[in-house]
């Protein structure tokens, strides 16, 4: 489909949200479109950036991600300190987080997409990612169903650096952490490398601005995985396949209420839909060049999609919810997530190579 009719359809959905749901949801849909168009337009792939660092000692992708985290923290932390209504992405440090982040980092390399990556690539029309999306949702839902059992293995209360130290010290600690990451990257890649290109630079700046808008409008940081789990939970509930009242996660007041209302009222779902729409709009002028997969690659890829969803729920987010939103809003769980997911990725790139993805 050409860009103009697509833009008309997207505008019609925006007006429907504005008229029939709420102004907030319409604005968040617009933010989602921006996120999707930026992710797809800049090909801002968290997964690819990590893989390029490991396999080619190319630091451009991860430098772009460090820049994104730094800018998002620079905007988010003072806002969190100034507006008590805004919440940080606080996940509990736990056994669940350690295991989930490792498995997520591993599987995202096989599937060639994290949470946001799966969304924008599905929007671009890449066959494996379109196939993965429903399984990602199912995995995320199953992870939420089992979350109580995983948390019983051991957890501590979430730690928020802004609450603990105030915005200035939390921001200084975050910047020091990101500087340490850049030094580690420099030691790995060696001298004479190009650190950043235009694509990663403008991608990081726009994503940081849109993530901040999401925080201001929704009152909570950008997330992806919750929306997926909610979609599958709604379908399972409608099919009488699951009773939310007996489940630790879905019987909580907030989740139980969200489950009874349309997903168009859920902030994460609406930005997810926007990301798909934004990427679809970009795809109208893009050349699809994904290579055809073998039957074995399809089976492995789809199985991986389920694990992506399950592990991201256990890890309290993906590269967006845990890494970007966690670190930029001062959550300790974001800082635990990164090394564990990176360790998983070190294995994942080998598995990916083995199956010739």
């Amino acid at each position: 489909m050409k860009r103009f009719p697509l833009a008309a359809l997207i505008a019609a959905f925006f007006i429907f949200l504005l008229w029939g749901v709420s102004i907030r949801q319409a604005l968040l849909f617009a933010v989602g479109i921006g996120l999707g168009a930026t992710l797809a337009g800049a090909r801002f792939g968290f997964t690819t950036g990590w893989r390029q660092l490991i396999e080619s000692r190319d630091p451009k992708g991860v430098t772009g991600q460090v820049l994104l985290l730094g800018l998002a923290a620079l905007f988010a932390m003072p806002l969190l300190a100034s507006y008590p209504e805004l919440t940080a992405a606080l996940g509990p440090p736990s056994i669940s987080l350690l295991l989930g982040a490792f498995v997520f980092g591993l599987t995202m390399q096989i599937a060639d997409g994290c949470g946001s990556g799966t969304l924008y690539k599905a929007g671009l029309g890449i066959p494996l990612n379109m196939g993965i999306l429903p399984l990602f949702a199912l995995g995320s839902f199953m992870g939420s169903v089992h979350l109580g059992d995983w948390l019983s293995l051991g957890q501590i209360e979430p730690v928020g650096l802004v609450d603990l130290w105030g915005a200035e010290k939390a921001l200084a600690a975050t910047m020091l952490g990101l500087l340490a990451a850049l030094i580690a990257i420099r030691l790995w890649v060696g001298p004479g490398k190009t650190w950043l290109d235009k694509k990663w630079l403008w991608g990081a700046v726009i994503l940081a601005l849109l993530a901040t808008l999401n925080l201001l409008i929704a009152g909570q940081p950008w997330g992806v995985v919750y929306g997926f789990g909610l979609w599958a939970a709604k379908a399972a509930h409608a099919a009488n396949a699951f009773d939310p009242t007996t489940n630790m996660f879905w019987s909580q007041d907030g989740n139980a209420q969200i489950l009874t209302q349309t997903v168009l009222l859920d902030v994460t779902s609406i930005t997810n839909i926007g990301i798909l729409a934004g990427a679809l709009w970009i795809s109208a002028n893009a050349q699809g060049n994904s290579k055809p997969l073998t039957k074995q690659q399809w089976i492995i890829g789809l199985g991986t999609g389920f694990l992506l969803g399950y592990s991201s729920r256990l890890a309290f987010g993906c590269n967006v919810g845990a890494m970007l939103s966690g670190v930029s809003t001062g959550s300790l769980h974001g800082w635990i997530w990164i090394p564990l997911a990176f360790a998983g990725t070190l294995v994942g790139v080998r598995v990916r190579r083995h199956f010739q993805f």
Partner: protein
Amino acid sequence: MNTDSHSKKITKVGLKVIFWIVLIGFLSWDWVASPQVDLRNEPPVIAAGSGQAPSGGHCSMAK
């Protein structure tokens, strides 16, 4: 364009169409099956400065 690449392109377009039909079908079913939105109880347009706690779920939430 040879027959093989032509059929691959058609399959890819077909997958894309199926994907969007399933997604729009799910959203339409959800809209019809869910209680009507209470427009009188709309959430604040901008959460910051509204004095209201956010009502959404997030992936970082354990509960």
